[in-house]
Every structure is written in C-alpha cells, then in structure tokens.
C-alpha cells in the first residue's frame, strides 16, 4: 500500500479518533496557561511559608535550649556516666538478640506459610495472629510472670511422661523474659517481611534452579533468598530501628537498659527532663548509626539488581556540592514567541 505520490494533507488523514474525539488536537497554549501575576503571588507565598517555618523552628529550639528545667550541664554530666553507658550496651544487646531471634523465627514462619502443607500454614497463621494481635507490653508482662502460671517447664509427650523438668523462675529470668518477649513478637512481623521478599522473586528463578537439578532447599538458600534480601533488607532496617526504641518497653520488667537506667537516676535526683534528654540523645545517635549501616547493607544486596550502581551518601554529597545554588533551582526559559 505504498505510494510514490506526495503525502496527502494531514487533515485529510484524520480518522474518528482525531476528528471527533479531538485526540491530539488540544491547544496547549490556550488551555494550560499560568498568568504572570499568579506566578508572582506563588513566589511570594513560597517565601512567606519558608519564613514562618523558620520562625516556628527557632522558637521551639530556643525555648527548649533555654528552659530552666533544661539543665545542660546535668545532661553532659550523665551522658557518659558509667551507668548510662551500661544501659546503652544492654539496649544494644537486647536489640541484637531480639532481632536475631526475630529473624530466625520470621524465616521459619515464612517458610511454613509458603509451604504446601496446610498444617504448617495454619500453625504459622496462628502464631502471627496471636503475637501481632496482642500488645508487646502485655506479652512482656506475660513472659515475666510465666512462673505464676507454669511453675515448672518440661519437655515430653503431651499428657504423657515428661523427660526434662525445670523450675520456671530459674530459666525465665527477667532478662530471658525480655528477650523472649521482644524476639517472639518480632518474629511475627519479620515473617511477613521475609515472605513478601521470597514472593517478590520471580517464580522462574526457582523453576530454573529445579530444572538444573537443584533441590528445593538449595534453590531457596542459593537462588531465592539472596534475591529476596533486596526486598527484605529495607523494612528490616526499619524493624531494627523500632526494636532499638522498643527495648525501652522492657524497663517495665526492671531490666537496666537505657530508659530504666535514667529512670532510676531521676527517681533519685528529680532531674527528669535532662535525663530523658540523655536517653533521647543516645537513642538518636544509635538509630542514626543504624540508618547508615542499613544503607550499605542495601547496597550490597542490590548487586546485579540494576544496571546503575546506586549512590552512596558520599557520592550524593559530592553531586550536591558540585551544583551551584540550592538543589531545587532550575533556570526558567523565557517563552519564545
């Protein structure tokens, strides 16, 4: 249907789409038009908003810094106090142990949920239902008071002979109760994160592994999980950060982590606010360090996932510095008549 004639005039070619439905025929200059005065008012409004925000922030910060109850020398005195430092260490230990426990339980639950066994599916669902559906604080109190409900713990056949029996109080110390409480609860959340990660990996990957003669287990550990990590790591980083702060809940069972330590001190000295600020400074510092660590772990697991190498903070900073002016400035072209 090729012709050698010169092309017909454009309008003659118009079918119903362009003619009746007016697709492609809108006059942009007429309909999308921002007047100069509107542009100017928008600019002024932007500056007013910026000034208001700066004033509000300055006001809050100055009140906070100069308040009478805010004794900064007290803050500095306690910031590196040995007891506080011990509290920081215990907070870190609790976070680490609870997260490791949570990840292990989460992985097992995730595998149970994607398995083809109905029994395992239901068991995992039940676990998640209970541990996600009740408050963490209540769970912590429950483990702490386990002895009053089960005076002894034993392993054996249900309703039958028991092989190993121990006194609950000797095993479930308040430290164990805290770790159990945090870890078991975390497992329920981690299982959903890990399952989402596993399911994000294209099914073709495990099929290719199966076709090569790899067992399901090997395909999972060598092919699927490493690629699932890219999806698992970012939300897990959030979980670590919220776990770090969540450990403050165990102050309720008298574990001398960071919050409990400062509570003990201010109960004696009544310097409540400065000591809470001490705790906040530490929490902020630790969560900041964790965020930076998370960035590098994400970069590690992104290998092969993209054609571009992702930016590090350093390269981002360099890019920012090489720009002139502030980053959102884009020179506006004058309309051409």
């Amino acid at each position, binding site marked *: 249907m090729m012709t050698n004639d010169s092309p017909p005039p454009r309008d003659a070619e118009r079918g119903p789409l362009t003619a009746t439905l007016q697709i492609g025929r809108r006059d942009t200059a007429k309909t999308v038009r921002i007047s100069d005065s509107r542009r100017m008012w928008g600019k002024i409004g932007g500056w007013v908003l910026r000034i208001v925000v700066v004033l509000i922030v300055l006001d809050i910060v100055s009140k906070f810094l100069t308040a009478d109850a805010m004794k900064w020398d007290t803050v500095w005195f306690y910031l590196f106090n040995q007891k506080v430092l011990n509290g920081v260490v215990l907070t870190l230990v609790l976070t680490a142990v609870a997260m490791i426990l949570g990840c292990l339980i989460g992985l097992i639950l995730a595998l149970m949920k994607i398995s083809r066994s109905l029994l395992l599916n239901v068991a995992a669902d039940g676990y998640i239902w209970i541990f996600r559906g009740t408050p963490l604080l209540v769970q912590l109190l429950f483990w702490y008071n386990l002895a009053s409900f089960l005076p002894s713990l034993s392993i054996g056949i249900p309703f039958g002979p028991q092989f190993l029996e121990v006194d609950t109080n000797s095993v479930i110390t308040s430290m164990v109760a805290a770790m159990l409480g945090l870890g078991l609860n975390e497992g329920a959340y981690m299982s959903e994160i890990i399952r989402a990660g596993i399911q994000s990996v294209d099914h*073709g990957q495990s099929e*290719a592994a199966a*076709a*090569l003669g*790899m067992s399901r287990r090997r395909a999972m550990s060598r*092919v699927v999980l490493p690629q699932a990590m890219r999806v698992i790591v970012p939300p897990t980083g959030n979980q670590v950060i919220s776990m770090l702060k969540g450990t403050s809940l165990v102050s309720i069972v008298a574990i001398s982590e960071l919050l409990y330590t400062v509570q003990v001190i201010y109960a004696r000295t009544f310097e409540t606010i400065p000591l809470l600020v001490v705790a906040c400074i530490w929490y902020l510092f630790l969560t900041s360090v964790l965020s930076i660590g998370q960035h590098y772990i994400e970069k590690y697991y992104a*290998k*092969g996932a993209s*054609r571009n190498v992702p930016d590090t903070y350093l390269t981002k900073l360099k890019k920012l510095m090489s720009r002139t002016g502030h980053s959102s400035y884009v020179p506006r072209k004058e309309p051409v008549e």
Partner: protein
Amino acid sequence: MTRTAPIVQLEAISKHYGPLQVLDAVELEVFPAEVVCIIGPSGSGKSTLLRCVNHLERPDGGVVRLNGEIVGVRESRGQLVEVAPAELARQRTEIGMVFQSFNLFGHMTVLENIIEAPIQVLGTPRAEAKAHARQLLEWVRLEGKEDTYPRQLSGGQQQRAAIARALAMRPKVMLFDEPTSALDPETVGEVLSVMRRLASEGLTMIVVTHEIDFAREVADRVAFMDGGRIVEMGPPEQVLDAPTQERTRKFLSRILNTRADATEA
C-alpha cells in the same frame, strides 16, 4: 529415521487445569540427535507439554520416559507415585531447559550462573567447573562476559548465557521453551545461530517455537499442536509446506500473513 530406541517418550500425556483440558493424551517419541520443533497457536499446550518432560508440570495422566526410565513418578502397586525429590533432581540433571524469559540468576555473574549447578548438584570441582564454563561461554560467543551480571546484558546475550548454563550440566536432551519470543528482533538471530550449531553437533533438542524458518531449516520433525493434541507431525517440508490438516494450514497462513505485514511496514 534411525531405528534406535527413543531417548524421550511421551506416553498418553494428559493435563487439566480445572475443567480446561490442556493436553489430551499426547504421544511423542524423540530419538537421539533428533531435533523436534513444536509449533502451534498460543494456548495449544505446547509449553505445558515441554514442561511435562522434566516434570516442571506433573501430568494428570501418562508418563514421560527418558532412556526408558519414567521421569518424576514411579509405579507402586499399580499406581503412579511421585519419586523422592532427590531422585527427580537427578533425572532433571540429564534434561537441560532454556526458558522464554531466560531466568538467569540475577544476583550471580554469568560465570557464577553457569558453575552453580555443576558445583552444587554434580559436585564438580570449582576449577574444573570454571574451565568448562569458560569453554561454553566461548562456544556461545560470550567470552569476556564472565563477570557481568545478567541485567547488564542484552536479551540475546542473556539467552545465550542461559543456554551455556543448561549445557554445563552435560544434558542428554535440551528443551527450549520459546527461546526467542522475549527477544528484540535483532538479537533473535544470534540465539537461533547458537541453537543451529547445537543441532549440528548432534544434541537431542525439543524446541517450542514460533520461528517457522528455523523449524524448516533445523528440525528433523515438526509437530503442530492445537487444542492439547498433536494435530500433525512429520518432516518440515511436509508439515510446513504441504500440511494435510486444515488447522495447520490456517495457523501457517496466519503466521505468514503477520510476517508479510511486518516486512511491508
């Protein structure tokens, strides 16, 4: 046709998805060093049939035999039961498969993709697996791409790497599931040329494809599938140029028309 024993035998393979019958008692024998191309409209069951060969799909009826041995199931008191996963895995090492969407392991380099299964499954020493992988990469003309990640390769390069990965297991049969359907037109040729060379080396191949010219040139036999059955099967010059079945004729004329449109535009 060689009168040796067939290497792959499909015996009355049936498969349903719910009420939909995808495969209806399909019979197919493939002999050593033979290239069989399966063509047919989408939904005709050709990919499902291919996936039954290495038991990625479990047939509802019938069995697949590789060198006489039933794949994936065994007879126990007159019933077919699944073999142990390790046994199925062993059988699969003898059947290489190439997928439409390549399915290279995204977190591994090309070399790691190729040596993974030989090391993990066959227990090949790492150095030996690497040397073999390098030879294969040279053979598929991907030398120098060892340390590249799949996503940094073109579709054609990925598919050639995937072929090398399947060959690294030294399979007795190779299955190709529409290996060029996901490729840009300009990279189709490089994959087909690798497959052509494989065929000339005497590898047994079952190829599900839409590339009629490739089938005509390379296949020993062409099977036309429609509605879950092999409607017509025979040498390419018979099935492709002088089909006896109306459905085959219709399908071929549709495909050839599309191609005519494409060249005209």
